[in-house]
């Protein structure tokens, strides 16, 4: 069975969901991520769903499960790039994602994760200046 790749970036794990996942693939991702957090001691998980055209109760539950498992393992979860139509549908479906932070883009999601670590006094870099700079224009 194929699996969704998990990238390690510093102290964070990054997952980009690019396919219309069938249920077994979603369950495998949940297990793989939990294992990787334990192995690597990662402090944050970023799940980019900008390519997902639909989030139903199953995928919603998978995301919520990942977030609570990550929390137990002392890692923060952020979901990025949710399409507006998906967000509207999720609300109508009646699904809320407790404990899941969201951000519009991967860049903002990474910044959010870093700020959580910084607030916990675990990130040495004193300021976020270069991140902030990337908001100012296309210069990056």
């Amino acid at each position, binding site marked *: 069975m194929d699996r969704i790749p998990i990238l390690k970036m510093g102290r964070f794990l990054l997952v980009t969901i690019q396919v*219309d996942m*069938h249920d077994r693939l979603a369950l495998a991702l949940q297990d793989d991520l939990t294992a990787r957090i334990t192995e690597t001691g990662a402090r944050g998980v970023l799940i980019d769903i900008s390519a997902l055209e*639909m989030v139903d*109760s*199953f995928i*919603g*539950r998978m995301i919520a499960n990942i977030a609570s498992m990550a929390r137990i393992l002392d890692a923060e979860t952020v979901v990025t790039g949710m399409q507006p*139509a998906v967000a509207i549908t999720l609300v109508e*479906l009646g*699904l809320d994602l407790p404990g899941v932070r969201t951000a519009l883009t991967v860049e903002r999601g990474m910044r959010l994760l870093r700020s959580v670590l910084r607030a916990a006094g675990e990130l040495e870099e004193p300021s976020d200046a270069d991140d902030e700079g990337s908001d100012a224009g296309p210069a990056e």
Partner: protein
Amino acid sequence: MPVQRSDALPIRNASDVVAVRQLVRTRAQEAGFNLVDQTRIVTAASELARNTLDYGGGGRATVQVLTETGRTGLRMLFEDEGPGIPDIELALRDGYTTGHGLGLGLGGARRLMNDLRIESQPGKGTRVDTVRWR
């Protein structure tokens, strides 16, 4: 109600649920639904197809494009020969599940579509008939 087009797909495994979502997306696009409506319909299809698989033991989906004077609809029919639903009102209630779900599928699908009817006979099977109009 004239049926413009009708397709049937089996639901026997998790990949079939993906195939149903994709067929429904294509038909909803062709029928001219906007992106939010397409997403609503595809999400409802996913919930109902998964129920057919998980609780009905598999079955089939029929997807139809309907035209009526001045309006177009997308109709989806999910049928199985599984154990049936003993109490339909209860099954529709948010949070009610006999499995490991959130109990949102049926109630959520009803909110995402314009009309949703369930017929079920214990021991004989279940049929969910639903439509959304444009």
